């Protein structure tokens, strides 16, 4: 049958000559390749002692940011939850009361903000959708847990710690 692609190669099997039948030169060549790798830089990391640096655009755990005065930036506008393809984000908003101006930046804030890390696919769309630059996926991996409920991260785990802002 004629080949359709005209790229078919017909191999003919020749009998091996003397050197080939000896196998020794082939073994030597193979060992040479192996030994050459002893002198090449290593590509592996010895994990627990040595950790591989994350890529610059690595997307890990979320964190909810604070502004330069230490107030929470999130206003619970719901755009992150809207853009989330995995529907991992839920929130309940509340109105800022008098005297809480140093806690929340806008008059509305997220009283409850939960991300289900098992649902999250770390696509970063929430980060892209956020109009207040409040959410960033700048953490590391999500640590393993025993129970499913522990993967639902609330504000206690998401909001970045408050530093001493002057």
């Amino acid at each position, binding site marked *: 049958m004629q080949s359709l692609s005209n790229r078919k190669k017909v191999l003919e099997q020749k009998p091996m000559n003397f050197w080939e039948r000896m196998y020794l030169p082939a073994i030597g060549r193979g060992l040479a390749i192996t030994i050459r790798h002893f002198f090449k830089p290593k590509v592996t990391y010895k994990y627990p002692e040595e950790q591989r640096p994350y890529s610059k655009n690595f997307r890990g755990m979320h964190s909810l940011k604070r502004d330069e005065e230490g107030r929470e930036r999130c*206003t*619970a*506008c*719901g*755009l992150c*939850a*809207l853009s989330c393809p995995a*529907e991992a984000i839920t929130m309940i*908003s*509340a*109105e800022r009361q008098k005297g809480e101006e140093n806690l929340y930046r*806008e*008059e*509305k804030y997220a009283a409850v903000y939960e991300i289900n890390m098992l649902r999250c696919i770390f696509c970063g769309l929430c980060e892209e959708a956020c*109009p*207040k630059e409040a959410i960033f996926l700048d953490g590391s991996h999500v640590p393993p847990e025993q*129970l*499913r*409920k522990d993967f639902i991260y609330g504000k206690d785990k998401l909001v970045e710690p408050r530093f001493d802002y002057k």
Partner: protein
Amino acid sequence: MAEDVKFKVSIDGIPVEVAPGTTILNAARRIGGDIVPPAMCYYSKLQGSGGKCRTCLVKVTKGSEKDPRPMPKLVASCRTTVMDGMEVQNITSPEVIEARKGVVEMLLINHPLDCPICDQAGECHLQDLGYEHGLADTRYEFERRTFDRIDIGDKVQLHMTRCILCYRCVFVADQLTTKRVHGVLGRGDAAEISTYIEKAIDNEFSGNVIDVCPVGALTDKTFRFKNRVWFTKPVEAHRDCPSCSGKVTLWYKGDEVLRVTARKDEYGEVEDFICNTCRFDKKATSDWVIEGPRQVKRTSVISLNHYENPNPPAVIKKNLALQEANKEQFERMKQLL
């Protein structure tokens, strides 16, 4: 003039026959689709509305059959009535598009752009308009005018900073209620909607100012910050109401009715004004007869993340033998939860 006289008008090349006295905007709405000019202040249910926001500007390229000269300037289509043989350009005219862009920019000059906080976001006409016709950023460098929040009664809240002065709410108060207690004070840049000395509106139909407001200036205090519009699920319902038609849209979140509004048509205008009892006091499913889910345009953000369930969930028969056999497994699952 005989009553069956019809004027032939063409809007963006699409011919339509309308009765004399119809405005260009309403003639365009008879055709429907993309060629309908947007309107922020005109409201077909309110007499005398329109002519204030200038978003509905169109170009009249031929005045009429008798006088074919074009109109020298762009005209507000909500206030200009048609003539026989008139030819109008809306989206086919680059001049109109350019003018509308300018109008949107002017409307947004004093707008605070606090959409992440605003309860109207998602069903705001100014948002849609800005998205379709506006620039992506602002060229305005000065302080925007700001006002304090005003409570109009205990159910309606006025955010004057968001107002675009369309006067719709003033017309509602004039035409639906016997005694108007709020209006526009000041002129020009200083104009603001206000009640004198923050006097309460205690009329039974005062809640309709929320529905007619094209932006988030007048909002429902009972819905304030409860949820975003696009996370709630609209359901048509009615009830036997002694004072109004009782036909409403309920906005559900789970089993809870977060808000009750009048039913709005494709131009965002209510079909029937509803009374305050229906709007603010009847927030239990048992008060209403549910008609079914509201049809939301696929392009609307409200339709997002709403899944219709075409098939009822399967009824699973309990298999006692199987449950007994897997008892240990079930208990382990319970522990995990």
